[in-house]
């Protein structure tokens, strides 16, 4: 079993890494990572706009975006992929590569999910920050730009990394519309070997695990650091107090 796996990796590592790149489109792991990174990079500004619209006091802005977020959260990603597969060529009137279709879907989907994260980040800051900024003469947008968003986004960094992890996992669904990503490369390998499907898909699972686990790890560490920083010096002062009270209660 282990020997099979090593042999497969030896023979096919290039295909799994970059697909048929020099002789065809870029694929494999490289494509998975590029697709995920692009999706998050594009979904991020979209999510800020969505969040601001959902927090807006104008129903004209709030309602359509709220509806969009609810629809996105209630419908399987696979269904949305099938929608874009059909709609994106219709809008652009051209033959669209499956990579672009998948990117569009992920931007809308992750944009909707991230917008909930951004909204929570802004709401969690509390009213005081906005009131203080307004009192200092900032306009609403100025306060958002210089006071609220920098703090909210900083607190959200771990959530954004988590979304990045789930985007990497979601790119596997591109398999359905033949996006040449890592999953696609693995199924190509499987089709060539035919006899060792378990070994091939085990390799696939291990690679995804390694990438997503390391990112999750980074997110967790950042989260702890940010939590400590947000708590400020007061948390350091509080520690000995808790410790003393524990000692006291134990003595009692």
């Amino acid at each position, binding site marked *: 079993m282990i020997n099979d796996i090593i042999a497969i990796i030896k023979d096919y590592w290039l295909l799994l890494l970059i697909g048929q790149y020099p002789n065809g489109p870029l694929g494999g792991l490289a494509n998975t990572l590029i697709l995920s990174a692009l999706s998050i990079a594009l979904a991020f500004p979209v999510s800020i706009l969505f969040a601001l619209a959902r927090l807006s006091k104008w129903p004209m802005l709030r309602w359509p975006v709220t509806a969009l977020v609810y629809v996105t959260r209630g419908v*399987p*990603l696979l*269904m949305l992929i099938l*929608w874009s597969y059909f709609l994106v060529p219709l809008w652009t009137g051209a033959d669209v590569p499956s990579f672009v279709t998948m990117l569009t879907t992920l931007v809308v989907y992750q944009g909707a999910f991230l917008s909930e994260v951004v909204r929570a980040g802004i709401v969690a800051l509390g009213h005081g920050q906005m009131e203080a900024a307004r009192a200092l003469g900032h306009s609403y947008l100025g306060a958002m730009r210089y006071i609220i968003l920098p703090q909210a986004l900083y607190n959200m960094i771990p959530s954004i990394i988590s979304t990045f992890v789930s985007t990497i996992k979601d790119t*596997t*669904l591109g398999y359905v519309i033949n996006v040449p990503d890592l999953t696609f490369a693995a199924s190509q390998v499987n089709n060539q070997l035919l006899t060792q499907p*378990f070994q*091939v898909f085990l390799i696939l699972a291990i690679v*995804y695990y390694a990438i997503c686990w390391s990112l999750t790890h980074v997110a967790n560490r950042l989260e702890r650091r940010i939590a400590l920083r947000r708590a400020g010096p007061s948390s350091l002062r509080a520690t000995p107090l808790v410790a003393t009270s524990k000692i006291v209660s134990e003595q009692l």
Partner: protein
Amino acid sequence: MSGFDLSAILSNPEYVEMLLHGIEMTFVIYIGSWLLAMTLALVFLGLRFSPLRFGNSIVAAYVSYHRNVPTLVQLMLWYFGIFTLMPQGWTTWLAGHNAEAIFAIIGLGLCQAAYFSEDLRSGLRSVNPGQMEAAKALGHSYISAMRFVIMPQGVRNALPPLINHSVSLFKNSSLALVIGASELTHAVKEIENLSFRTFEIYLVGTVLYLFFSLLIMTGGAYLSMRADPARSARA
């Protein structure tokens, strides 16, 4: 293709039957994997809180694996991989009993168990330790304190994430399409191939998914309200 015409699909008994069958299979997969996931999650919870030292790390490794490997890859590993490694007798039996649906239930259920067990654990951990001390002081044994004091509060705390994950499990049931289970998304694609009414049939499929997802969310919201009227009124 002529203009928008929903009746072309809804008035064709063949398509309606395919849709109904798809909905039925989606629910078979959903309910089956939900039950499997919840049973496993409770077992994991027991392991987490048990005095066995390695119980905790086994569950932690399980959760870590299922959180970091895409669900689709897990389904593929089960259906294309483990299925072929099984003894001959099992394979024939499974092939005769809708193997696609069975592996969809196993794959989705095992994966979701990781999320459910984490939800329950965080719910239980948010119960103040004082509650256990108080229950013991009142003469409860560990088991009965768990049963009557800790679990009711812990499960109530865990309800919101459990509901969210129940909805995402419902949505993930569409992944069974990839291993060929004939659920709702599969039916939608089939009807699209037959009728060429892409827009209409995707709309029907989307509305159906949205309807059932909202139904689960509303049911969950009702359950949370029943479990803790005071807190829901505040939220």
